[in-house]
């Protein structure tokens, strides 16, 4: 009998056994699937979130804002997650905009929302000059246009449109504050003139309005000069009174970022330059490294528990199967055949669990991606390859095979005579 035939026989025995113990097999396969799916999801989500938040694919190199935390500045201005650390004078925006090292400077004024979605006051540069990816500008969908800076108009991200059911022609009244409070509604009515095409960036979750409209909204007070200034209808707002929450910057070269970092952060006392954005976010992930380690540890433990479940499910059936092994041995099956059949069965359970685990992975990842997108606008790609998508199922299968060793040794040592017929 050749090796292939032996393997065929083993597979036959294993298939029969799995079928015979279908319920316990299914439960064990499911627990393995949960373990592999969860572990793959932990690794893949960690990788993609880190990549998405630190990879610098936000279209800007730096954020200029009030003196304080760089991280808060980035989270607030780029990901719309945090409160604003404060404002900086309009003059600073003008100054940095004129700096020859700066390719693009776009002011943001935040402080309002519509059902929790950030309203960002800005200039038309966001549509005409900003590239969220190399060579890609924000575009409005058919039938829309960008806002007129002199009108109370708005352009909304595709995610906002989808979630709130808004479209070009819809109107809305903003709510004061960065977080939705029904009692804080402004009187001003804005008309949506365009819905942006999906960019899969935080911009999808933003409502863009002209920056002057932020200044002119009732209840807003400007303190650019240090004194309070309230905008009046039909009267131009003096630049000196204007403030911005942040200035989004793109540099001609990385050296510019380095030099401005020296000037603004180390020598200056007025503002903070968060540069480079990816590094600022990477520091956040590094600070949260312990969470990652705990999650990874939990994932590994879940895999170990799954391996344990294979061991216990096989071990529990051993007593009823002793007679089966004895019969097989009486028919000429070697100890090694019985041993191999058990190890192969454990491997098969782990292998099947790993395959089903891809389904679990897809489910977990899809939910996580949805949450991340809802919270940050960052899109994660469920089918993007990560080495864990191979290593975890392979590792789990090997672990499963190892977990089969204990019951296999037990089966190996089955006393044939004692487990056959009663003595006569």
């Amino acid at each position, binding site marked *: 009998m050749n090796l292939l035939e032996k393997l065929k026989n083993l597979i036959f025995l294993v298939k029969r056994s799995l079928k015979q113990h279908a319920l316990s097999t299914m439960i064990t396969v499911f627990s393995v699937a949960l373990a592999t799916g969860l572990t793959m999801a932990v690794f893949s989500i960690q990788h993609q979130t880190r990549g998405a938040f630190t990879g610098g694919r936000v279209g800007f190199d730096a954020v200029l804002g009030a003196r304080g935390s760089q991280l808060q500045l980035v989270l607030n201005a780029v990901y719309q997650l945090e409160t604003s650390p404060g404002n900086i004078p309009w003059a600073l925006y003008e100054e940095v905009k004129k700096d020859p090292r700066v390719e693009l400077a776009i002011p943001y004024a935040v402080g309002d929302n519509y059902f929790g979605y950030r309203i960002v006051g800005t200039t038309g540069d966001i549509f005409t000059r900003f590239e969220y990816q190399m060579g890609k500008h924000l575009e409005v969908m058919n039938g829309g246009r960008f806002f007129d800076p002199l009108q109370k108009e708005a352009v909304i991200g595709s995610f906002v449109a989808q979630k709130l059911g808004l479209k070009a022609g819809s109107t809305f009244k903003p709510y004061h504050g960065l977080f939705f409070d029904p009692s804080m509604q402004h009187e001003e009515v804005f008309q949506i003139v365009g819905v942006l095409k999906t960019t899969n960036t935080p911009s999808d979750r933003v409502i863009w309005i002209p920056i002057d409209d932020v200044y002119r909204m009732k209840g807003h007070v400007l303190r650019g000069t240090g004194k309070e200034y309230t905008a009046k209808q039909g009267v131009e707002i003096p630049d000196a009174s204007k403030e911005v929450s942040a200035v989004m910057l793109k540099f001609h070269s990385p050296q510019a970022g380095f030099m401005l970092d020296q000037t603004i952060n180390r020598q200056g006392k007025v503002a903070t330059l968060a540069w480079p954005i990816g590094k600022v976010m990477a520091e956040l992930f590094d600070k949260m490294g312990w969470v990652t380690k705990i999650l990874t540890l939990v994932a590994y433990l879940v895999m170990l528990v799954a391996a344990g479940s294979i061991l216990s499910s096989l071990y529990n059936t051993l007593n009823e199967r002793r007679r089966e092994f004895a019969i097989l*041995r*009486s*028919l000429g099956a070697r100890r090694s055949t019985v041993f191999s059949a058990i190890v192969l069965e454990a491997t098969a359970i782990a292998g099947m669990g790993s395959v089903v685990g891809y389904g679990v992975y897809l489910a977990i990842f899809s939910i996580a991606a949805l949450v991340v997108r809802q919270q940050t606008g960052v899109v994660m790609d469920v089918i993007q390859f990560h080495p864990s998508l191979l290593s975890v199922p392979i590792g789990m299968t090997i672990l499963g095979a190892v977990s089969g060793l204990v019951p296999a040794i037990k089966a190996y040592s089955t006393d044939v005579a004692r487990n*056959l*017929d009663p003595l006569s």
Partner: protein
Amino acid sequence: MKVLEIKNLKKSYLSPEGERHDIVNVSFFSLGGGDQLALAGESGSGKTTFLNLIAGILKPDEGDVTLAGKHLPTLSEGQRDLLRAQSLGYIFQTFNLLQGYTALENVKLGMMFGRGVDASYATSLLDRVGLKARLNYLPRQMSVGQQQRVAVARALANHPKLVLADEPTGHLDPVRAMESLTLIRQICRENGAALLLVSHDKEILAKFERIENLSRINRVPAMTGSGGHKK
């Protein structure tokens, strides 16, 4: 040519009290190719142990068993397994069919560890024992008599030189027992296999031309009572 030859075969067990009890002590026993011999023995006379020693399932304490020209004591366990798979058929009192396998698969199992599976031969064997229509039935879906016939087919599946039958009719009513015995003997004859059948049923024994009493060849007295070992 002898298919089985036994010399000075001894087997003992250690009791839970730590005392050693002899169970088999056979100075000489042999069986020629194609022979059919009934071995008479009461319950507790060591019949099953004797058959297990012949089959190489148990290792003797002393003595020699030569099966199909091979000296069992000199073979490794793996070699004994292979010899059993290639040269021996075993019909058990309770048939020992694997419950999760169909009739055909049970017969195929009898081939699997020896020369390899021959599906058409397995089918023809089941046809021969009258189970052509039950190939894909599980043991629990068949009557006791049908199960026994599957066990007979399985014992013959690997073209054995010797078939051991341990009280093969013990679970059958007298009419079925006689039918079954006739079938076993016929099929062994057709396949050129020697048959060593142990039974304590006088009517079964009476059907054999050659009968040997285990108590005569085994010099260990049988234990009284049921199911115990001998002293």
